[in-house]
Every structure is written in C-alpha cells, then in structure tokens.
C-alpha cells in the first residue's frame, strides 16, 4: 500500500471515530449558535489529531505534508457532512495570505495557530456592490491619516463575516490611478470601531452565511498593510492561486447519481417504472458519464501531484460543469417526485435533498467565479483567445463611466 493510501485509511478511521459527534446526523436541528460551536469543536479536534493545516509549515502549526495529503483528507471528509464551512475561506485563503505577507511574523504565527484550532475565524472582503466578477471595479476607499489609514465604504457577499474575528480587505487608495493600480491590500480587525456586519438572507435558506459589511472611518495601522501602496491587485490575484488544489465533488456538491437512481427506482412515470423511462435513463447516463470524467480528471491530477508533476489546467472545469449539471438534475428529480416534491425543509442539506440542492444551485454557479467568468478564463488562459473588448483599460478609475 502506498504512503498516500495509508494516509487515506488513517484519515478515514479518524473521521469515522468522530462522525457520531460531528457528522451529518449529529448536526440535525442545531441552532445557528450550536452549529457554529460544533464547527469550532470539530476544528479543534482536527487540530489536536493532526489533520489541520495538513500542508502547512510545522513552524506555523501545520503538519508539513503535501497538498496531495490535504486533498486526500478533504475527499474522505466530504462524505461525513462535518461542520467545516466556517473555516473554508479562513484557512484556505485569508490566513495563508496573511502568513505570506504580514510584516509582524510572530503575530501572524499566533493567528495561524488560533485559526487552525478553531478559536479565530477570518473572512475575505473582496466583492462590493460595484465589483464582483469585476473585482477591480471596487469603490471602498482607504486614505492616509496620520501615520496610518482610514477606511470607508461597503463590501458585499462576505462569507461568515458575522462570525469573523479578522478579515483581509482590498480597497482603493487612489481613484485617479488606473483601475487596477490604485488598490491596496490590508488585514482588518472585524471587531474594530466603525465596522458593521449585516447578514443577508438568501433564497436558499439554512443558516445565513453571507453578509454586507460597512466601514465608517475605520482606523488601520500601516503595519496592517499586506501589499505595496497601489499594489493590492497582485496580492488579491495571489490569493486565488493559494487554493489551487482542493477536493472537488463531481456531483457539484449536490446529491450523487446513486441517489438519483434510487429515486428513479422508487418512482413511476405515467404508470410505468421511472427507471425504465428513456428520458430518465438518458439523464442518468449522461450525467454519470460527465461526472466520471470529472472524477477521472481529479484522480489523474492527484497522481501527477504524487509524481511531483504539475496537474493540467483541466481541473478548472470542475465547478463550472458539475454545479450547473447538478442544478438541472435537481430540477428533474423534483419533476420525478411530482406533488411529493413540493415539500421544503429549510435546514436540509444540498448533498442529500433535491429541493435544497436546486434552491442553492444558483449560488454555486455565481460564488467563487460565475460560470461566464470561468468560461472567459478557459478561453483566454487555456485556449489563448483574445480578451473581451475592455473600455475601462488604460483609463484612470475616476474617469470610467459608472
């Protein structure tokens, strides 16, 4: 057995041992506060067992293993429904970027260990009302004040800002500079004077996870700056490269093909078994063929990583292809259920429940790169096609028509 396979089994054994405490069934019916507490406790247990910061430097509380070990653990973890959502951005994006760029190393190390053990949570303050896909369209303003800075404006769609102790933020320091040039990157105390967080209720229920965040003369020390003045966009782009390798789900974080097959076996269409209906069979076959392909892409990427090679760019297809396919399959599942599909449990999981999966699917197609942005990225970066026509290029930000 390979070392990686042994690691996988060790991870699985540990996950099975804690699943009765933190797994899907144990979380049923918990209030928001209880669910968050369970999340923190699970993260603490992971840290104690050596499954937090798997590919991080041991100096920073990590385990010093490879990204492959991390992906293997995530793959195993995915099936248990553990309360991991609170730490995705925190440990996947914000803390690593702080570790890379923070000026005070000892402080950064303290934060890393507090985050790995579930005591502190970090958010990432990027999107705004005027800039989501077009990140550099952001308008939150940061101005020098004394020997520090003053922050004013608004962020939007900030994941778990309401539970966060800290955040990383990109803001505009110079509206007269070119759009991508006048931006600077900081870290921020979310409990500081002048920060207001308001959760946003989404159409797909469950506990709130995104927020709008307002800044009213929030004071920042220059030591909180993580990029050169005006060099924030490059730092923001660097955050996108940190989590290149993470576990993907060919089912698009919705129910599996096997779940759909079970539904079809239990249903009828016009008095005949649904599993014998050509339309249903075609949907199953095509969806499964696509998902097997995504899975094979991931497996091959992992083998390449294990061999010390760089996986190909095709891994970027995962989210694009899997989530919209899940959306359609969820619609078809509700069709199959007919009147029985009208019921809605706001706390049901997208991984098990077709209605929850269908309602939450649009978020998956927009958050973390809208489908259209991903298609553009594939076209430009992989296929070498030209950029779109960009009237904002080479124009000072304050002269771009709003």
């Amino acid at each position, binding site marked *: 057995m390979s070392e990686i396979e042994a690691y996988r089994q060790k991870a699985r054994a540990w996950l099975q041992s804690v699943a009765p405490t933190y797994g899907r069934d144990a979380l049923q019916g918990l209030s928001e506060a209880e669910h968050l507490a369970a999340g923190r406790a699970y993260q603490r247990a992971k840290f104690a067992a050596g499954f937090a910061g798997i590919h991080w430097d041991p100096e920073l509380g990590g385990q010093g293993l490879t990204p492959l070990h991390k992906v293997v653990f995530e793959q195993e973890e995915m099936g248990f429904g553990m309360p991991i959502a609170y730490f995705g951005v925190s440990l996947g994006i914000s803390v690593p970027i702080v570790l890379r760029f923070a000026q005070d190393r000892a402080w950064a190390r303290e934060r890393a260990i507090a985050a790995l053990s579930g005591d502190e949570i970090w958010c990432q303050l990027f999107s705004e009302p005027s800039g989501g896909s077009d990140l550099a369209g952001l308008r939150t303003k940061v101005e020098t004040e004394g020997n520090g800075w003053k922050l004013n404006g608004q962020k939007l769609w900030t994941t778990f800002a309401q539970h966060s102790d800290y955040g990383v933020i990109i803001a505009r320091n110079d509206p007269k500079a070119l759009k991508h040039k006048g931006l600077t990157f900081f870290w921020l105390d979310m409990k500081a004077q002048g920060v207001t967080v308001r959760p946003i209720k989404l159409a797909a229920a469950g506990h709130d996870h995104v927020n709008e965040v307002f800044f009213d003369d929030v004071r920042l020390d220059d030591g909180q700056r993580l990029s050169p003045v005006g060099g924030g966009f490059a730092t923001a782009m660097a955050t996108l490269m940190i989590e290149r390798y993470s576990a993907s789900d060919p089912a698009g974080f919705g129910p599996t093909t096997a779940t759909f097959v079970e539904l079809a076996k239990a249903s009828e269409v016009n008095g005949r078994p649904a599993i014998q209906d050509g339309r249903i069979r075609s949907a199953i*076959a095509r969806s499964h063929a696509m998902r*097997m*392909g*995504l899975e094979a892409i991931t497996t091959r990427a992992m083998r390449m990583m294990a061999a010390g*090679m760089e996986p190909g760019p095709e891994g970027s*297809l995962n989210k694009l292809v899997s989530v919209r396919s899940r959306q359609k399959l969820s619609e078809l599942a509700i069709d199959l259920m007919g009147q029985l599909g009208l019921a809605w449990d706001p706390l049901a999981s997208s991984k098990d429940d077709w209605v929850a999966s269908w309602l939450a699917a649009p978020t998956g197609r927009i958050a973390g790169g809208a489908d259209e942005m991903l*298609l553009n990225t594939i076209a430009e970066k992989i296929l070498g096609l030209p950029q779109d026509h960009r009237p904002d290029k080479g124009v000072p930000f304050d002269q771009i028509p709003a």
Partner: protein
Amino acid sequence: MSIVYDEQQEAIARESRRVLYARADKARLLDLLERTGAWDRTFWDTAVEQGWTALAVPEAQGGLGLGLIELGLVAQASGAATAGAPFLTSNYGVVRALQAADAELQALWLPRLATGEVVGAVAFAEGNAILPAPPAVTFADGRLNGHKPGVTAGLVADIAVVWAEHAGEPALVLAELAAVSRQPIDSFDNGRLFADLAFVDAPATLLLSGEAARFAALDLLACQAVVTAHEQVGGAEALLFVARDYANERKAFGQPIGAFQSVKHRLAELYGLVEIARANAIHAAALEGQPGFLAAAAAARLSATKAYDTAARDAVQVHGGIGTTWEGGLHLHMRRARSLAIEQGNMLFWEDLLVDELAGAGA
C-alpha cells in the same frame, strides 16, 4: 483507476502524431469520399511500418503485447488526422475474440493480424441493433448463414468475428470471408469500407456460446468503444484547435471573432467536453479487464461521442461559410464524427447499458 502516461506511452503518442501529421493529405482524403470501395492505403502502410498493427497482439504471436492504452494513443493521433482505414479498431476486436480460440486458430491468424497482412472485421449488428438478441444469423455444422448489414471494413476484411445464433443460444464465431458475397454501401464516409455481408454456408469456427459469448461480445464492444473514444477525442481536439486558430485570425467588426463571447464561450465549452471525454477514455483504457470496465467504457463512449459531434457542429459554425465548403475539409471530421458514433453502437445503446450497470439490468 486513471493513469499518468509513462515515457514509452508518451513516445507512442508523440511519434504517431508526428508521422501522421507529416503524411497528412487532405486532397487524398477528400478524393476517397467520392469513391466507394477505395481506402486509405497510405495510412495502412504507415500503421504496418510503425508497428501499430502489432501493438496489442500478444508477444507470443508476434505482437508487442501492449494494450488499450497504447492503441488508444495511436487511435487518438489517427482521429486527429481523420486518417484511418477502419481496421485498427476492428483488428483489435478480432485479436480480443481470438483469445477464446484454440492454439491452432490463434497461430493461424494472430501473427498475420500483427503484420497487417490480414484484416479483421467485427460483424455483430443486425437491423439498427448493435447486439441483437437473438441474432438472426445462424451457425450450425461449421457453416454460417444470414445477413450482416453495414459491417465496418467489411469490403476488404479477410476474417470476421460474427455474433450468431447457435443451437438456440447466442454465439461468437470466426468466419473466413474469402467466398462471402459483399455489397458495398455508398456511404457519407466511404473510407470506412462499409459492406453488407451475405453468408451462405460460409465456413466458420465456433469461439464461444451461451452466456460466455454474450459476455465476450459486450467486452469486445467495450474494448472497441474505448479505442474509438480515443479516436473521437483526437478528432474533437483537432477541431477545437482548428476553430480556435481560425477565431484568433479571422476578423469581423474590427476585432478577431474570438474576442466575442458567443465564440469564446462556445470554444471554452468544447474544451470542457474534450477534456472530460479524454479523462474518461484514459480511465477506461487503464481499467481493461478489471471490475467496472464496462461502465467506464460506456462513460468514455458517451462523452467522446458527444464531444466529437459537438466539435464537428461548432467548428463549422465558428468558421461560417468557409466551413461548409468541400475544399475546406471540415466535413471530413463531421462525417467521421457520425460514422464513429454509429460503428460501436449508438448513444441509445450505450446509455441503456450504462444505466443497467448502475441500476441493475433487471431495473
């Protein structure tokens, strides 16, 4: 299972691409389309010279003892070039079927299949069914009788593995075609040498019968589907690149048409289909002879057919008017996409087969 190609496999991929690219001749392929019964001898000579015919034949019988992965790589290169006499795939099918034959029969045919001296065909389909149950062609007392329509390579093959009925059970038999009457089909993809075969007391040898025959027939179809999936991926990828290059070069409204999202996104979607099909094809090839092979082959077949058909459709669309001309030659791929979509069983067959694998055949 899914693999990362080793050095030898990378070399096969590189060399087959190089040779076929160097010998590509669009005019020759276009000419073949208008002639029934002619085939791409240049390709076959290349296949023999490069040892591709011997790739998947056991070493003891004069072959190289490699398998689906390596054959798939050659098929991918030949798909990209719309090269290909059809025999690379069907010869492999015959080699597979001969694994069930006795030593004498193996010694008679395998070495000559390896040298490319003998061409094999696989004659399973009847009507529009790729694997009819029961087959109408019958085998008794060493003789084969009945009719097999649209056999790929049927016009020139020396031997064929035939799906037939024998004593009330399905059977796989090996037939010599020397005296069998063949009616060529004037086809939209003439280089495939499609022919209707009429067996009248044709001499044949029983390979397998009953459930074992059905199982072997499905396995053989799955193997051929995986080779074909690689060929389809090669074709689809070639079309993706041709369309991409054209979109970068052709200007309209003052910019390359590839700067318009309607074109960019079409090509990005196509990239997705090609990569999913490629991953499935590699995965299936590496799973040969192991549990889950049939489902993996079905997934490879479905995604590769979708990728190649879509590529043919979209590459022509991106080219606009020029894409519809005879000389432009994109129709070589369009035709091949459809002939390959039919040859190893259509989408409807493979969808059903995959669902049977997932849900149980009784469902």
